[in-house]
């Protein structure tokens, strides 16, 4: 298949016809990217990257008429003006010192910058926390099975293809059967440089009955860099595995960000994911959960602080493919300034997925009259014995609550911050780890302090 489609791409990627569709990510840039990769990487991966590049070139940019891009400011989506990441440009920020981690991988501009290895005990038990480049060689079969295994379904096929084509390196985490990793595993991705484009990836494979928590931070050196990010992750929870994933996106407020997450949940496994969105001028986040076998449970959580002219565009898909599966989505947005959010969620229940429990809720707290929150909740149910609810609400700060806090000496701005945290608490409370809860609360607070 790759060989066949490559021919098509050759013609499609000639600069004259393809320039608006590829922007800075032209064939020269792709050739340079391939040339920069280590020769040790397996041929199938390089072939996949070539195929992905062809797909990226061939696919159109999102159009106003695309239902999956409804309400998005597509005129602000650009592929121009970005540069491929150079190794460790600029100062790598200090990794946040919050809670103790089992291991940490730090990526700067797509390449491993530093790491804190696992304890000897966890390494001996077979836990793997390494780079994708490393894993592509040493754990080839596992990577091949799970890396970007789910086709994009939520509208960002072009950007997911771009991600695959230009992916340099990322995190690979494997928790073997029955192993519990008590402390979170940290993955930090930094974008450094004024116009840098990054393509972070995290692949997590949790084998039967394993337990782990992954904490991923995306961050820029400064808040003024017009950067570009096209990231993705794959979470795979095998039978009985319990996986918690925290993603905190805090790119530069001038960055353009695409992130596509896929979660596969097998029999009696449960995945809890919480994505915290703070950064970027425009951020698109797609999240897919596949409930593949009975007893599977996916809890999808998100918190967004949208301010000034930021736009956060979240699209979700909960697919119930087997009976007795459960998914529970709760996305909360706090909007300030002239910020805009979009939530579009769909629950799909296949015909044989009886006894499905599926919930979807989007709540918006409007802290400004100029902000705009859009919600498009949706259901597609083929089975007849299911319990599904979905809903969206937008509300303002209750003036009586605000007065109550002010009557205790708390100024209006601080009162609104406190009430916003109160609003977020329902989501943060879902985390079973109190330390993680507190660390995230502090991280979100830093946005209010700016």
């Amino acid at each position, binding site marked *: 298949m790759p060989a066949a489609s490559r021919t098509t791409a050759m013609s499609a990627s000639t600069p004259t016809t393809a320039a608006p569709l590829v922007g800075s990510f032209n064939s020269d840039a792709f050739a340079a990217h391939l040339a920069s990769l280590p020769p040790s990487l397996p041929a199938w991966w390089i072939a996949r990257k070539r195929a992905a590049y062809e797909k990226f070139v061939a696919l159109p940019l999102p159009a106003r008429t695309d239902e999956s891009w409804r309400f998005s400011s597509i005129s602000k989506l650009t592929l121009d003006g970005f540069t491929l990441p150079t190794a460790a440009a600029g100062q790598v920020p200090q990794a946040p010192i919050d809670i103790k981690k089992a291991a940490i991988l730090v990526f700067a501009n797509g390449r491993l910058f530093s790491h804190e290895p696992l304890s000897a005990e966890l390494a001996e038990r077979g836990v793997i926390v390494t780079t994708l480049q490393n894993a592509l060689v040493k754990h080839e079969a596992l990577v091949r099975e799970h890396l970007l295994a789910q086709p994009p379904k939520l509208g960002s096929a072009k950007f997911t293809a771009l991600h695959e084509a230009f992916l340099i390196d990322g995190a690979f985490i494997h928790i073997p059967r029955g192993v519990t990793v008590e402390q979170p595993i940290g993955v930090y991705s930094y974008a450094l440089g004024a116009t840098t484009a990054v393509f972070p990836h995290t692949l997590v494979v949790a084998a039967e009955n394993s337990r782990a928590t992954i904490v991923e931070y995306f961050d820029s050196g400064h808040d003024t860099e017009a950067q570009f990010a096209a990231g993705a992750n794959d979470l795979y929870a095998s039978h009985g595995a319990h996986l918690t994933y925290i993603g905190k996106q805090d790119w530069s407020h001038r960055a353009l960000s695409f992130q596509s997450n896929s979660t596969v949940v097998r029999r009696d496994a449960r995945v809890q994911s919480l994505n915290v969105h703070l950064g970027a001028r425009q951020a698109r986040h797609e999240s897919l959960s596949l409930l593949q076998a009975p007893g599977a449970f996916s809890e999808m959580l998100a918190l967004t602080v949208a301010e000034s002219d930021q736009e956060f565009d979240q699209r979700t898909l909960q697919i119930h493919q087997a009976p007795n599966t459960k998914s529970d989505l709760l996305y909360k947005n706090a909007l300030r300034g002239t910020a805009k959010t979009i939530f579009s969620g769909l629950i799909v229940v296949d015909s044989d997925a009886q006894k499905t429990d599926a919930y979807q809720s989007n709540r918006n707290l409007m802290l400004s009259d100029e902000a705009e929150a859009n919600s498009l909740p949706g259901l597609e149910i083929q089975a007849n014995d299911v319990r599904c609810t979905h809903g969206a609400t937008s509300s303002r700060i209750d003036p009586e609550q605000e*007065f109550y806090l002010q009557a*205790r*000496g708390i100024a209006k701005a*601080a009162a609104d911050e*406190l009430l916003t*945290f109160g609003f977020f608490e329902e989501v943060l409370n879902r985390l079973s780890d109190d330390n993680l809860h507190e660390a995230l609360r502090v991280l979100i607070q830093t946005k209010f302090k700016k």
Partner: protein
Amino acid sequence: MSQLEIKNLHVSIADKEIVKGLSLTIKGGEVHAIMGPNGTGKSTLSKAIAGHPDYTITSGEVLLDGVSILEKEADERARAGIFLAFQYPSEIPGVSIANFLRAALQARLADGEEIDASGYYKRLYAKMDLLKIDRKFTSRAVNDGFSGGEKKRCEILQMAMLEPKVALMDETDSGLDIDALRIVADGVNTMRGPGLGVLLITHYQRLLDYIVPDYVHVMYDGRIVKSGDKTLAHELEAKGYDWIKKELATAKA
């Protein structure tokens, strides 16, 4: 010694005048009770002094230690030393009492100054012990799902922590059974002293059995129509508010 002076105060809600020229001075150490029938402007008075945005002060003055507070926002008034104990305290889901009180105390510090966490908890627990409040209380969200009694105890705990110069207690006894009333009254009595002036707003004489006032004022139709000592409360209890109304009618005629 602190002093709150209310001078010929007029308060309107949406162009309807509710308080119609009320004057009262509360000195540190004094407990004043304002009694009166429903709808006579008692709660309006306390909310207007605390700075609720829905209440417009159309004329008159409120001075705290000689300085007008009327130009100040509600939070500035609170920091200056005014405390309003609410008749119906708001529920604030997701904000724990500990974090809420910490934010309130943090707001009283200079910019860049951080509250000392261990000192804060030490003081908080000491106050709770004094008021006989279970420590688990602090991790609960402010008033969220609280019983009437719990809400009022939460108000008293806040008052104890914030140490105001003047406390305006709006129908603190409403919705309380005798046990809860006693606990709340004990709290106020514990805090009584030269540093604190108290304005007790109440419909019933019952509360004044537990918090004995220095002065009792009867409010009717937006004004104080009669003042006296604690015996006035008993007289009211015996004769009812109609007695006042009749007196007023006689005076007019």
